């Protein structure tokens, strides 16, 4: 008697689990494609904001290389490098990098570097910096991030690649020095990475790396 009672109860719970899992599976099936598309759209918007669509003629989103390099890109995770070309000639790369020493953890960056090693621009992705203080690194909140446009390893020189408080060229924010300091450092490292790798980053063979 007790055994049948237990069995029935267990079966009932099993049934609920199956129905619940079914609901989730069904939702997943119908949202899988839109989610991938939304993610692609969001990334494409950032890519195109950095590399004007007229300056290249390839599909940057699919012309991608994956590299993990803790020293220069700030994380052991595989980072994507999107390549922009015009008629097969290298135009620019957009490098995913991480500033690991933000005020609250990792700051994800997209660093766009022109073929001549000057910066096309930088955008901030996911981060957990203090709202109202550190989040001025977002383009929506202030144009600080545009101070990178046109800069390169030699402009300014090494000592200039710091926030003003540390004797460099880049502004810090009132009440938030750690955040911009981390971003400046990460962008500088990404430029070093580009200098070290050079045209290797444009090698066609690794197209779908």
């Amino acid at each position: 008697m007790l055994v049948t009672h237990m069995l029935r109860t267990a079966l009932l719970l099993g049934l609920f689990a199956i129905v619940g899992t079914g609901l989730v599976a069904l939702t997943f099936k119908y949202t899988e494609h839109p989610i991938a598309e939304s993610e692609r759209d969001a990334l494409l918007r950032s890519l195109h904001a950095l590399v004007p669509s007229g300056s290249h003629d390839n599909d940057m989103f699919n012309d991608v290389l994956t590299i993990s390099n803790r020293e220069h890109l700030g994380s052991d995770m595989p980072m994507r490098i999107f390549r922009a070309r015009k008629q097969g000639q290298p135009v620019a790369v957009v490098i995913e990098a991480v500033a690991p020493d933000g005020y609250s953890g990792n700051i994800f960056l997209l660093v766009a570097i022109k073929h001549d090693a000057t910066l096309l621009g930088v955008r901030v992705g996911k981060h957990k910096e203090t709202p109202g203080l550190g989040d001025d690194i977002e383009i929506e909140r202030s144009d600080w991030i545009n101070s990178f446009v046109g800069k390169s390893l030699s402009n300014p020189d090494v000592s200039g690649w710091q926030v003003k408080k540390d004797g460099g060229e880049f502004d810090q924010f009132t009440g938030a020095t750690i955040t911009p300091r981390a971003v400046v450092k990460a962008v500088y490292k990404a430029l070093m990475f580009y200098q070290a790798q050079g045209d290797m980053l444009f090698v066609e063979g690794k197209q779908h790396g």
Partner: protein
Amino acid sequence: MDNRYSGISSDGLWHNNIGFVQLLGLCPLLAVSSTVINALGLGLATLFVLVASNLSVSVIRNLVRPEIRIPAFMLIIASFVTAIDLAMNAWLHDLHKVLGIFIPLIVTNCAILGRAEAFASRTTVDRAVLDGFMMGLGFMLVLVLLGGMREVIGQGTLLANAHLMFGSIAENWTITLINDYRGFLLAILPPGAFLGLGLLIAVKNIIDEKATKPTVVETMLATEQN
């Protein structure tokens, strides 16, 4: 418990409001109420989960055995939350990114399991759905109110980032109430959420007190009769 429709409604919206009276779901309430749009997004998601879980729990209330009711309710709630998490990721991608972990965390909002256990599992489907809707609406209103307060005091705007939810037509819905406002950081940071919620609860208590206190005339009449 008041089982009439009007009673269920006034319980959810006012007398037994999740945010003001039961003080449940404080973690998401305090974490995402920094702007109206964030608050509205989480409020709507919670509302949907509450209605759906109350409905399902009420439908199966005679089927489920007491020993397994809590795991069964959790299964139902977790399934709906995962479904809405996926749906928001697909169709409200940017808002989903802002709300982040707080959408999946709706599962742990004890208000939802609380309504399932204390109300929906003991009543008819129509009452359960109404209860879920009114409780969810009450919670959402508190979220939006607190979000509005914090947004105005913190950044001097209302409806900033409305396009995250309503698409490109909402690009210029942002109302700047105070020009050249440097912002008041306390309101945006977590302590501001606690202070704001505390003030709102105080206001609610004052209103309740006023409503139940007899008027001067009534008091005089009462003393005369003595």
